[in-house]
Structure formats: C-alpha cells, structure tokens
C-alpha cells in the first residue's frame, strides 16, 4: 500500500504535465486562427476595443456582422467602391488549382510509370534531369521564368498560371515510389492477358496507387492554391488575380482595415483546410506509405 502510493502520485503528476503540454500546444496553434475567425466576424473598431484586457471578448464578436465579407466580395457599397473582387479571385484560384491538379495527374502519372516500370536507354540520366529541377529554387528563377513565359506570349493569361506547373519533379518522384511498391507480377499477369502498357497503367497501377494519387493531388492542390510570388509577377490584370494576391495587396494599401484582412484570410484558408480535414485519413496514410518520410 505504502509502495503503491508514490507510484500513483508520480502517475498523476505525469498525467498533469501531459495535459498541460497538450493545452499549451493547442493554445499556441489555435489562438491565431480563432482570433482571425472571430475578428473577421466583427466591425474593425471592435477588434481594437476588446484587444486589452484579454478576455473572451477578445475572440468572440459582441456585435456579430458579415460586413467584412460583404466588403471583400464587393457586395457592399464600400467594397464595390474599393474594387474588391474576392469572389472572382476565389473562382480564378479554384479554376487554376483544378486545372493544374488534373493535368498533373495525367502527366506525372505517365512519367512516374515510365521511371518505375519502363525500359529506356540512359534512364538514370533522365531521372537526374527530372529530379535536378527539384533543387532549382523556384524563387531564384522566377524572374527569368517570367521572361520565358512572356516570350511565349502567355504573360497575363490563365496559361501563365497553369502551364509552368503541369509537371512536378516532386510528384513524379513520390508517385514512382508508390508504383515501385506494386508487385511486378501483377503487371506481368495483365500483359499475359493481353494488356498494353497503357492497359497495365490503367487497370493495375492506378487502382493500386489510389492513396498515393490522392495524397499528391491534395498536396499539389494546396501548393497551387497557396501560390503567391508567381501569380503576383505573371499576371497584372485584376480579372486574373488569385486569392493570395488579393489578400496580400490589402496589407500594402494605405488604410489597413483589420476586419477585411481577417475576412480575406478566412476565405483564402477555409477551402483548403476543409479539403484536408475531409481527406485527412488518406493523406496521413499516404505520407506514411510514400517514403516521403525518407
């Protein structure tokens, strides 16, 4: 009895510290997001009014309003006057992201299949050519990329936002890792049954790599959705503005309206967050299987 008590006490202390760490982590990561969401739903002056002292009022709107959202979508008088078109920007971003994911699924799957399965002279050299681009920092070559795109006549069009990203060294690498895990015997069985290479890809490889395809699509979608530097440079006209550029240009304006900035942040983040939450199960499985972990 006397021996069991200190052990029980140590256990309780242990649980206490785990709970404390748990709450601290939740606090650090949730607070900025909750502040953003709460502040987007209240008039800007209220944000300043209740920031200090810290209380529930700092985070929960007293006077609930959707005015900030009406502004950034250009529905309200003021929003129209300021030329906000976040609706248009969201549609642009959704269109570009979907187009890139769609084309990249086809192009990268074909290329990954090539590297995982097909015979070709000097295939390793080709692999170095492909993976080498992974080490080319995009931010460093974005200026020359713009010149190339401009010379091709794509500057300031949707093509400029889609074409440079339809193939990805990262996706090809991850997918070919996935494809290599699939037993070759399945390919051979299909070929004996008279399947062509494309048939093998369609009926053996793709069905067996669904988790991998979903994972890379998700990563690619959020990558394109969140792109900022390239769209900022590649497109100038308002009609092509993507959501991230729309959010960022708010803070460089002379008068910074906090409520609208928060509303913009919510609108730009929620679609991707919901997508990840919905597909989280597959995504975690995908990362674990992909060899992404090294």
């Amino acid at each position, binding site marked *: 009895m006397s021996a069991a008590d200190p052990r029980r006490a140590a256990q309780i202390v242990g649980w206490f510290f785990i709970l404390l760490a748990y709450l601290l982590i939740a606090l650090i990561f949730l607070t900025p997001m909750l502040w953003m969401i709460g502040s987007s739903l209240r008039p800007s002056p209220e944000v300043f009014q209740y920031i200090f002292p810290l209380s529930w009022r700092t985070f929960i709107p007293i006077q609930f309003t959707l005015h900030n959202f009406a502004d950034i979508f250009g529905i309200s008088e003021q929003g129209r006057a300021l030329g906000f078109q976040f609706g248009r920007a969201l549609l642009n971003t959704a269109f570009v992201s979907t187009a890139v994911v769609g084309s990249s699924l086809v192009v990268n799957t074909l290329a990954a299949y090539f590297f995982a399965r097909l015979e070709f002279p000097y295939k390793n050299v080709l692999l170095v050519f492909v993976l080498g681009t992974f080490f*080319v920092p995009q931010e460093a070559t974005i200026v020359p990329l713009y010149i*190339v795109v401009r010379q091709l006549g794509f500057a300031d069009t949707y093509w400029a936002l889609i074409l440079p990203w339809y193939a990805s*060294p990262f996706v090809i690498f991850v997918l070919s890792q996935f494809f290599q895990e699939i037993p070759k015997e399945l390919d051979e069985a299909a070929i004996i049954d008279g399947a062509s290479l494309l048939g093998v890809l369609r009926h053996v490889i793709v069905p067996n790599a669904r988790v991998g395809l979903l994972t890379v699509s998700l990563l690619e979608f959020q990558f394109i959705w969140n792109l*900022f530097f390239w769209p900022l440079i590649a497109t100038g006209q308002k009609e092509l503005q993507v959501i991230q550029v729309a959010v960022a240009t708010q803070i460089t304006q002379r008068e910074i309206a906090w409520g609208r900035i928060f509303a913009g942040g919510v609108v730009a983040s929620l679609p991707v967050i919901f997508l990840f939450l919905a597909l989280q199960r597959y995504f975690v499985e995908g990362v674990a299987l992909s060899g*992404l972990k090294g």
Partner: protein
Amino acid sequence: MASTTATPSASPSWWTYIQRRKTRNYIFAALFVLPAVVNFLIFRYIPIVWAARASTWQYSLLGGYRDWIGADHYLRALEDPILLKSLQVTFLYVIVKLPLEVALALALAIFTNQAIRGMGTIRTIVFTPVVMSMVVVSVVWALILNADSGLLNAFLRTLGLPKQVFLSNPKLSLPSVITATIWKDVGFSTILIVAGLKGIPRIFYEAAVMDGANRWHLFCHVTLPLLRRTLLFVIVTQTIFSFQVFIPVYSMTQGGPLDSTKVIVYYIYQLAFRFQDMGYAAAVSMILLLILLLISVTQMRFLRSDVEY
C-alpha cells in the same frame, strides 16, 4: 546445304526484328515521359540558361538588352554591401529557424505519438497552419505582432510586461519572422517524423527495455538512430525551402527595419521589380542558385551514406 546458307541470313533478320521492336518500345516509352520533360526544359532549365545569359548584360524589363558587360555584375556583387547583408540575414534565418523547427517537430511528434486519446486531434491542429497559405499566416502574424493593437502585446501587458515594437525593432524583426514561419512549417516536419516513428519496429524498444534501458536511453539509442533518415530528409528539404523565404518578409517587414530582414530572395525581387535592374537581379539569382546547389549536394552526400534498417 540450303539450310546452312539460310541460317546465317535468318540470324540478322531475327536480330533486326528484335532491334526494331526494341526501338519501337523505346519510342513508345519515351512518349510517357515526354510531356514532363518538355515542361522541365521550357519552364525550369531554359530560365536558368536565360538568367546566366542576362547576368552578363545590362538588361531591364522595359528597356530590353543594352550592352554586354561580361562579368561586371558578378564583380559588383562581390562589393555589394547590401548583398552581403542579405546573405548574412538569410543564413542567420536558416541557422536559427532550422534547428528550432526540427527540435520542436521532434518533440511534437514524440508527444503526439503516445497512445493517448486526443493526440490525433492535436496533430491535426498543429498541421492546420501547414495548409494555410504563407500569405495568410504572414498577414495575420503581422497583426498579432502589431505594436499598438496586436494580440501578443495584449498578452504581454496582461502579464505586466512592457510592450514591444516587434516588426519595427531591428533586434526583434527577424526573430518575429522566424516565429511566424516556424508556427506555419513545424506541422509538416512533425507529420513526417510521426510517419518515421511509426516505422520503427516495436521489437527494438521491447529488446532495449529488457536490457534495462530507461526512457532517455530509448530516445538516444533507439529512436534517434532509427529516425536518422527521416530527420535528414526533413533537414535537407527544409534547408532548401528556408533559403527561399520571401513571402513573410514581403508582407510583414518589407525587408526592414534597417535591412534586418532583407533576405536574398526579397533583395532579388527588389532589384528586378523595384529598381528595374534585371541583369543584376539575374546575377544575384545565379549566385543563390550556386549556393543552394552546393548545399544540396553536400546534404545529399550525408543522406546517401546511410544505413537501412
């Protein structure tokens, strides 16, 4: 007699048949990889060649090419105090951010990998900033760190501490940017390390426990060595990404105050689009490219010289 003459002639035709088939297969195979190769050629390799070319010219977006000036841009780079400063800032950013992020990610991964209810939820929470955009995170953190009405200063005042001008104080601006980017990025490294932890066979722990190892021993002699590949992968990719930091500087500090956050990509952006000095921007881009290639090659060596388990 007829059969003996037929055999040598049949052999070449059989050989060419195989060859032709092989060539046909190769051409067919090439079609699979062609679209990707074309993309990389046009949108990734040609820009590098172009940057190399433009770096030896006086060039601007509006004026086009003017004079060929050879290595002048590179000589100018050697004596450019702002470039030197921006390289220092970038290295400082990476050297501080990287170990902090990896250590935090390791701690978070081990913590959330415990078989306790609710750990999956906290992992999701830590991962959420990863899928948010850098723009949104920077913009929100700029307001959190705001001197007058920011959330962090409200917190400091509640604790009775003096208010800080985080983004306008040259001593605090870079740490502020680092804090915001770690907050955003740490979840990604955490997920990778969790995946690595789940890959360590339980039997190693059981064997070590039987040998009388305590928790610290387990961490140092089982977890860390077996996570080496994962950790190296995280470090290699995060190094490359960290060197390219741009958005938080663009939207939080614009490189200031006193160039204390002017990282190299932001300097390139300024040169190209603010100062219309495209040729010099291309030269600085080439320098950054070279530095990053050197770092990746060195790191890949480490990654390769590793053991499988």
